[in-house]
């Protein structure tokens, strides 16, 4: 008790002293003796960041499928909507499926013979195969009544260039491919998609990667370089986000496409959600379910902008270049940028990010300790 008494006397002295000095010092010094303990125990900013992340965070928002407002809540709108559902599922869907099947039959009947028979005449074979791939992609787009508006100059076949685009679903590839036979870099998928990848897409010169292998990045970088330098290869299309995002946001672009020493042609894709949301949430739906959802909707409406090719500026790092191109694409498509790596969908953030915060905190504590020693 005595110590408390003397303690508060000296506290009073300090209070009067600090009142004059309050403009020079920080505002919180009426309790100067307890200041260090107060600063030490006050973990509210750190807790606040944690709670803020729990309540809402920009990363989860990138992968949220926004449920559109239902419009069929009325006595006459509801029956109309029901009629629409019946029509879409019982008339439109079978017609589209038939169309798709016929297209596939034609495609396979032409592709494999050409692939086998014209083995020696690579030039003609490749031209025909490209034409066939563009054909089957158009059939695909027609099967979900794709209304695609292309803006800007069509991609031309030139060496030393790559195309980059934002990624919403695997149909991005189909939509771009119907216009130009790109070679693409993709994750190998299981099932019938994988079968397609190994047969048809191989002939286009596609490159495979494996997210789960850490050395994979170097192997892929090598393959990319070789592809771009080959004048005979098809123009390369890369989705630098590395994962499907919901078309309202973009996640950070991986720098692989931007350190190949060639021109980067940005392509922006924006879907109109009016009839269907084209975002493929691979954790919630298989690709087949996703396709069926598209094929039972009225239409898939989207815009594609081919933007001006960019080269790396002197003094610019690959990451800065990637961000600059992402900026262009985000602006054109009218979508927001977030500073997160898309792979955080599959992995926890690296401990380095936590360590940065710890380092900053430690520096503040040391500074405060020194400050109280000076007073």
């Amino acid at each position, binding site marked *: 008790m005595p110590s408390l008494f003397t303690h508060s006397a000296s506290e009073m002295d300090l209070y009067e002293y600090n009142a004059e000095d309050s403009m020079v010092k920080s505002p919180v010094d009426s309790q100067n*003796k307890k200041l260090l303990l107060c600063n030490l125990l006050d973990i509210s900013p750190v807790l606040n960041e944690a709670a803020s992340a729990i309540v809402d965070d920009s990363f989860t928002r990138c992968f949220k499928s926004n449920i559109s407002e239902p419009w069929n809540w009325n006595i006459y709108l509801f029956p109309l909507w029901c009629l629409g559902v019946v029509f879409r599922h019982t008339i439109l869907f079978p017609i589209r499926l038939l169309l798709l099947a016929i297209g596939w039959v034609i495609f396979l009947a032409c592709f494999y013979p050409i692939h086998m028979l014209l083995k020696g005449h690579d030039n003609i074979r490749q031209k025909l195969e490209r034409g066939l791939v563009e054909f089957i992609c158009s059939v695909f787009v027609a099967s979900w009544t794709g209304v695609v508006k292309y803006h800007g100059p069509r991609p031309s076949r030139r060496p030393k260039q790559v195309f980059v685009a934002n990624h919403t679903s695997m149909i991005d590839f189909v939509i771009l491919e119907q216009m130009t036979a790109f070679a693409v870099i993709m994750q190998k998928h299981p099932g019938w998609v994988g079968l397609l990848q190994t047969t048809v897409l191989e002939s286009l010169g596609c490159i495979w990667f494996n997210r789960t292998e850490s050395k994979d990045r170097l192997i892929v970088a090598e393959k990319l370089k070789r592809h771009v330098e080959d004048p005979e290869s098809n123009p390369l299309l890369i989705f630098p986000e590395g994962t499907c995002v919901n078309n309202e946001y973009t996640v950070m672009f991986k720098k692989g496409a931007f350190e190949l020493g060639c021109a980067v042609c940005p392509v922006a894709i924006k879907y109109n959600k009016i009839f269907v949301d084209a975002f493929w949430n691979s954790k919630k739906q298989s690709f087949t379910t996703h396709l069926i959802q598209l094929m039972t909707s009225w239409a898939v409406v989207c815009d594609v902008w081919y933007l001006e090719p960019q080269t790396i500026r002197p003094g610019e790092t690959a990451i800065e270049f990637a961000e600059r191109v992402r900026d262009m694409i985000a602006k054109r498509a009218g979508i927001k940028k977030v500073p997160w790596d898309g792979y955080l969908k599959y992995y926890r953030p690296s401990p380095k990010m936590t360590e940065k915060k710890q380092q900053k*905190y430690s520096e503040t504590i040391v500074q405060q300790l020194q400050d109280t020693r000076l007073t």
Partner: protein
Amino acid sequence: MGNSSSMLTQYDLEELQTHCQGIFSQREIVALYERFCALDRTGKGFILSDEFMAVPEFALNPLAERLLRTLEGVNFKEFITLLSAFSARASYEHKVEFIFRVYDSDRNGKVTMYDILEVLRDLSGSFLTDDQRKQVVIQALEEAGFSEDSALTYQDFLEVLNKAGLKMEVEVPVD
């Protein structure tokens, strides 16, 4: 697909409001319910540690592991109670109680130098040595009139912490 507000009836909303002592408005509770359902990926009715850690912004917080000990397996009622300390309408005492519970991991109502050292270790990682940490804590305690053997109570926390300096307000995004 049943993640819309139609899952919560007016009766539910009123019950939840009473439960959190009127700190959240009904719109905020609805928004928090949507968020709860988004975090609870498999619709179990409670959130696992892994599901919290799937939020990168949370995972890189130095106190994330410590907070998970109170957060793990929370149902929606507990979720709201925990977050109510971060509302603008929560009292200073309520916020300090939350902070006190973060330090008092063994729930015995007392925070010792060792409890403080543990939290400080989480916050500073490898950037301060154990000796430096001990030095800071002992000096802080002694300057404030305590000793290294003191056990701080909730009342002590109320006195030491500064109401004006506390930064514990998270806005719930309502549409």
